[in-house]
């Protein structure tokens, strides 16, 4: 491993501890990590976009003598549109920015519309009416090995979907029957939100495990661990950050309010 990689590994562990210090409270060490992260992200993004998009797609084409005059002239059009976008900073000419924005909105609307209609709306609507005979043949009433797929789940899906849609149908009188259907729709929605929330919690714990693996050196080869000493680095960083937090807390004295 090169020296810069070693320093990088230690800095990574230090910044992880700094970010985790937010769990105690918002503090200057966390702010430092936050600002470093933002600065590096913006710097990286600008460089990537300049060399990956702006230069090859615009500058190189404008400067390329091998391209014909017409092709080079065409590249001026996006350049003009970019300049028009910046007219927002001059209030008198800010209306000019509407033209490139209109192009962007129209292009995205066109691209999104076909995809959403074909792959999302049509296919998913068709899929929400399952072939029960086929489901029965494949999974029976309830198949534990396939996450509970089967006729019961298929019927629940259809009824749940219908109830959800009726819950948002406000033109019908809210009589007793409608209220019961609506309640079932809410229950289905809550089940769906619960599943999504469960997956989200799992994702967040996974990220925490990932950081813990790095701090303990479990994601590196034995050779790298012998060079980096991640556990020593983690211990030193934790001691440094905790020591700073104690000093920072003492300095605040009675003025300290958790959550600031």
């Amino acid at each position, binding site marked *: 491993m090169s020296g810069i990689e070693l320093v990088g590994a230690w800095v990574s562990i230090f910044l992880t501890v700094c970010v985790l210090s937010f*769990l105690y409270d918002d503090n200057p060490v966390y702010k430092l990590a936050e600002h470093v992260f933002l600065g590096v992200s913006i710097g990286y993004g600008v460089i990537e976009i300049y060399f990956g998009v702006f230069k090859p797609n615009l500058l190189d084409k404008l400067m390329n003598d091998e391209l014909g005059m017409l092709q080079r002239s065409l590249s001026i059009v996006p350049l003009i549109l970019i300049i028009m976008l910046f007219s927002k900073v001059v209030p008198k000419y800010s209306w000019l920015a509407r033209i490139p924005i209109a192009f962007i909105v129209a292009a995205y609307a066109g691209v999104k519309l076909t995809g959403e209609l074909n792959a999302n709306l049509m296919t998913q609507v068709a899929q929400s009416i399952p072939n029960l005979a086929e489901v029965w043949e494949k999974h029976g009433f309830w198949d534990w090995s396939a996450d509970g797929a089967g006729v019961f789940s298929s019927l629940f899906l259809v009824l749940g979907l219908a109830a959800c849609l009726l819950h948002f149908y406000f033109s019908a009188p809210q009589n007793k029957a409608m209220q019961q259907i609506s309640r079932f729709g809410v229950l289905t929605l809550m089940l769906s939100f619960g599943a999504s929330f469960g997956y989200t919690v799992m994702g967040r714990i996974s990220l925490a495990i990932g*950081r813990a693996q790095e701090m303990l050196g479990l994601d590196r080869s034995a050779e790298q661990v012998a060079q980096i000493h991640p556990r020593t680095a983690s211990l030193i960083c934790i001691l440094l950050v905790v020591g700073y937090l104690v000093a920072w807390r003492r300095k605040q004295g009675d003025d300290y309010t958790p959550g600031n």
Partner: protein
Amino acid sequence: MKLDTLIKFQNMDRRWIFLGMGIAILLPLLFPITLSFNIDERVQSLYDSVEEVPAGSTVFISADFDPASRPELEPFFRANLHHLLRKDVKFVAATLWPSSPPLVMPIFEEITAEYGKEYGKDWCFLGFKDGKELAIKAIGENIPETFPTDIKGNKIADLAVARSFKQAKDFAMIINVSAGFPGTREYVLQIQGQYDLKIASATTAVSGPDYIPFYKAGQLTGLSAGMPGSAQYEQLVFPDGPREGERLMATQAVNVLNVGHLFIIVLILLGNIAFFVTRRVEEAAP
């Protein structure tokens, strides 16, 4: 349990929960435990669809993830490369995420070197392309025009592995390792239906529930969601456990994940018991 204790528990400083979660994660990492888990139908289907790719053919990998989603997706990404290369399947890779190239390129180089694969002949990395959905649409229509050069600046016509592939549909399948937007959803919406593509997806746990309908509708041939998905895929690719000196990162982590989940379940149960007991006592009070 006394009422005072229950009230105290309800008003407990949330930092104790963070500390508890930290311990629940660290202890099983330091003293590993092994809990069994089953292979999900969606992950099995993903594995089977890769197994069906004939040796010598080429797949397209869209590595759309960043350091933030690395713990969940890198184990899948690595296992998938091992799976493809040991079957002697070639690959052309690209990404729609600007922060992906420095993350995935070393992994490509490390694993392809292990199998003695040659850059340009057996695999290549076309790098990052901006444009999100428009870039995906372009990958569906014309790859050489979308990526005139690879990440190293070589012309695509000079890369034996990539030069014969004009469109996404020319590949045996598309494997999308997706951490969000742009990713699996956009691939399905923009080009899967139009070109009848075979797409398999590995995604984060957060995105998993959103993509299950795509799998159910046959728009995805397989789906691996989050760390459990990666762990299951690792088990399928390495049924005899990790090779010497290596670790199955997701398999190791999924055991820790189980302990973390148990901790949350216990807190939810205790929180609910405390809530209902204190409410009943308060209601009964004159």
